[in-house]
């Protein structure tokens, strides 16, 4: 009896340890899905390009697109996906365990320079170039952006003749749903007042990052405007109207290749610039929708199909 209990305890402890080992530590690059076996190589010209990604679908798809496009032009490339947060993968880029990363201009700028104020795409890119560490460089940003965006239903847009955030001014009793930080951040309620002169907004904080509860609040008419990330498939699935932002209240978040300088070459630039030229916000939306579709394809397969469709592989 005692022995049985001892064995059961040992088995339970063993199982717990195994499970714990499976959980990945986001700060530890070695825990990422290494498909290259090259994580120990410290880079340098001529060595293969290792494309990293953060641990969310869109980043993985973009990394696979970069790697696929490079390979199609005969450049040796592999991927190292799922490297957690920015602190972790910027470190990995600096120490050379990865050499290329699909980044977003605005967020990278804020990470490197928390006091940055630029919001327009060109201004953000210029500030970012100045803020980058010496070992890293960015190529030409794509027009694709994944950022906060204000959305209304098609019916609301038609009824109030709204296409841009500026058109919201003067609508009585306007209500808006977003993450709680929207209430205090410069791109949120304070910005809407200062930049667009929209006052008296009834704000509802919903903490799901523009997810299903926010969407439901918008489509059920509980709120007029909802903050949803611009590449979320629910925007197209529900025929939402994303409001234009002529005053650049919300900082640009263009997808841009972030590259180690010792891997930079005219051939690499040519390939990645060709990818960026084809990459639009709509393309990201379609890629995300496909990736989250019912048949749950792999990021690599979604990327390969896109490269083929766009004549890049």
């Amino acid at each position, binding site marked *: 009896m005692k022995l049985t209990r001892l064995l059961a305890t040992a088995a339970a402890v063993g199982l717990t340890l195994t499970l714990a080992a499976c959980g990945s530590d986001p700060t530890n690059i070695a825990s990422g899905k290494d498909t290259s076996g090259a994580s120990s190589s410290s880079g340098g010209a001529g060595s293969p390009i290792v494309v990293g990604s953060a641990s969310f679908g869109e980043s993985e798809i973009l990394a696979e697109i970069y790697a696929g496009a490079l390979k199609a032009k005969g450049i040796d490339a592999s991927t190292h996906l799922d490297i957690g947060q920015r602190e972790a993968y910027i470190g990995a880029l600096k120490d050379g365990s990865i050499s290329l990363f699909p980044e977003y201009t605005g967020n990278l700028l804020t990470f490197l320079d928390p006091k940055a104020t630029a919001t327009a795409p060109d201004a953000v890119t210029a500030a970012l170039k100045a803020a980058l560490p010496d070992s890293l460089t960015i190529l030409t940003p794509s027009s694709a952006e994944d950022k906060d965006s204000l959305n209304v239903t098609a019916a609301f847009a038609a009824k109030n003749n709204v296409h841009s955030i500026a058109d919201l001014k003067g609508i009585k009793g306007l209500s808006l*749903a977003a*993450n*709680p*930080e929207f*209430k*205090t*951040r410069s791109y949120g309620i304070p910005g809407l007042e200062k930049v667009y002169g929209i006052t008296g907004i009834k704000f*509802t*904080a*919903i*903490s*799901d990052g523009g997810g*299903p*509860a926010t969407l*439901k*609040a918008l489509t*059920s008419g*509980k709120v007029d405007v909802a903050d949803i990330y611009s590449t979320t498939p629910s925007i197209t699935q529900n025929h939402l109207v994303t409001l234009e932002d002529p005053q650049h209240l919300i900082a640009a978040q263009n997808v841009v290749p972030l590259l180690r300088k010792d891997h930079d070459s005219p051939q690499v630039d040519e390939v990645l610039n060709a990818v960026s030229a084809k990459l639009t916000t709509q393309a990201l939306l379609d890629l995300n929708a496909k990736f989250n579709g019912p048949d749950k394809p792999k990021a690599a397969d979604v990327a390969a199909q896109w490269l083929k469709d766009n004549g890049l592989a």
Partner: protein
Amino acid sequence: MSIYSAAAHWLVDGAHWHGDDGFPHRIAQHLGYTALTVAIASAIALPLGLWIGHTGRLRGLAVGLTGALRALPTLGLLTLVVLWRGIGLGPPTIALVVLAIPPLLAGAYAGLESVDRATIDAARAVGMTEWQVLGRVEIPLALPLILGGLRSAVLQVVATATIAAYIGLGGLGRYLIDGIAVRDYPQTLAGATVVVVLALILDGAFAVAQRSLSTHR
């Protein structure tokens, strides 16, 4: 400054003690959600629990049901109800009622079961009707356990009502969720402290009530 002293400063800052975002208003909202939830849950669980305890019927079902309800994650349930009903007071109330029913139900039927069968038989022998047996013998004798169930339900609801802020309502959860959103951890800790203090005060009040109930016998 450590996060603890920063939270203490946040807590005693006069600016946080008035207005819609101030503690008095948030505490009132929080207690309002708690009272509404416990009232609805009591209206459902107490009659059901008393009936089960009195008749002994469906006891197996009640035990299984309360166990299953206890296992439901409240935040997950909230999201589910939001997708069905949209945002508003309804979803958090429903999620919290589901949380409050198991302890209330268990307190009621277990309380009645704890009454000595000989006492009940004696009550019937002196000619009491079933309603009289329930109202004059069973419920008074079961009251400490019924109150124990209520105490447990109130404590769980007051500690969990913070989820109302997840979908934009008020209550003390606002400090937790707004604080986390902008990494203002002193605010989060201050809000959490008030929730703990509120829960302890309510629990203490129930403890006093339960004690006076058992000494007045």
